[in-house]
């Protein structure tokens, strides 16, 4: 229920003042998600795979991760999509570790790293903050996730 806390906190006038927010007095309450936008969204690309290929060519580091208890954009969806990039495998599928436990599984391809995060939902850092942070540190370092 944490998003209800945000709805309360960011609608407080003292919070908006402290953040220099809502200076134009928007005619609606601050909310975590806008119904208007999601219902009237115009253009949406069918696939991001061509963009991934362009970014790989441009030498941009790409990491894609999945919390494996999410059923809205689940790990199987992401894996199925990524498999159609047909990338060459550099480091074969292995369990990665955080605090002595399997933090998830990972596979490193030419140009892209995939990692699952075990026991995490759609918002990975909310459900598995320590594993998410461990993954972030490896991403910034540009190093594969730890094997122990």
């Amino acid at each position, binding site marked *: 229920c944490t998003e209800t806390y945000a709805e309360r*906190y960011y609608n407080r006038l003292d919070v908006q003042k402290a953040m220099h927010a809502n200076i134009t007095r928007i005619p609606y309450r601050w909310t975590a998600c806008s119904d208007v936008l999601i219902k009237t969204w115009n253009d949406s690309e069918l696939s991001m795979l061509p963009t991934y290929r362009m*970014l790989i060519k441009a030498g941009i580091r790409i990491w894609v991760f999945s919390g494996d208890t*999410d059923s809205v954009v689940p790990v*199987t969806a*992401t894996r199925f*999509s990524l498999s159609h990039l047909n990338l060459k495998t550099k480091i074969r599928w292995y369990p990665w570790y955080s605090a002595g436990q399997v933090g998830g599984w990972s596979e490193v391809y030419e140009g892209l790293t995939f990692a699952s995060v075990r026991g995490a939902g759609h918002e990975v*850092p909310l459900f598995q903050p320590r594993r998410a942070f461990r993954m972030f540190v490896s991403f910034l370092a540009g190093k594969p996730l730890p094997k122990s």
Partner: protein
Amino acid sequence: AEERARDRVTALPGQPAVAFAQYSGYVTVSEPHGRALFYWLTEAAAGDPAGKPLVLWLNGGPGCSSVAYGASEEIGPFRIKPNGTGLFLNKYSWNREANLLFLESPAGVGFSYSNTSSDLKTSGDERTAQDSLQFLIGWMSRFPQYRHRDFYIAGESYAGHYVPQLARKIVEYNKASPNPFINLKGILVGNAVTDNYYDNIGTVTYWWTHAMISDGTYRAILKLCNFTSANVSNACNRAMSYAMNHEFGDIDQYSIYTPSCH
């Protein structure tokens, strides 16, 4: 410098004392339309922020707020106490290792606004990416210390579109610039909307392999839904709705093994 000083956040109500600096405010992305995007920067908590990378975090939706999710319940330095009475520290905040920039995008999300109200009904991938690039250019002129800094873009869900699309705009912008200053090094996306067809097949497969739907419903969806098309047929809608309304039960679909929020 004056704009930067004006954006400085001394402290948020109910916030524990912290040593890192915070800034928040608006960057205009379209003068004619009066469109401005709201940001919140929490600088790195450990070591010298000048030596740490800049990470821009985008949530998805489309239409959801990076302040509500990314900052307040995922990677930001603060968590919100129940009933919004104050803040407490997030032990695994990503600002231990980076300067975190949360952007509410596009206009209409959170505190971001447009003085042209029709803008809220004409948003889409293309303008969102263009506005976010415009935001970055304007923001980095206000915070020139972040020009040429190692820069990463991260996000989740529908930001599986926003993040690579903004990265693509930056790569193109840098190619066209005699002196590029946005030093994009990488992108990191989680539970990311990636490909309409493969995502949908993979999603229904997850529902079946995790015993959330029956064999019959699984077969019906695969038979009635043509995921190669952006338009969903009534028969497909009915099959999907049956699964969610009669077979899932009262679960949190975003985290199927934890209690749902009432």
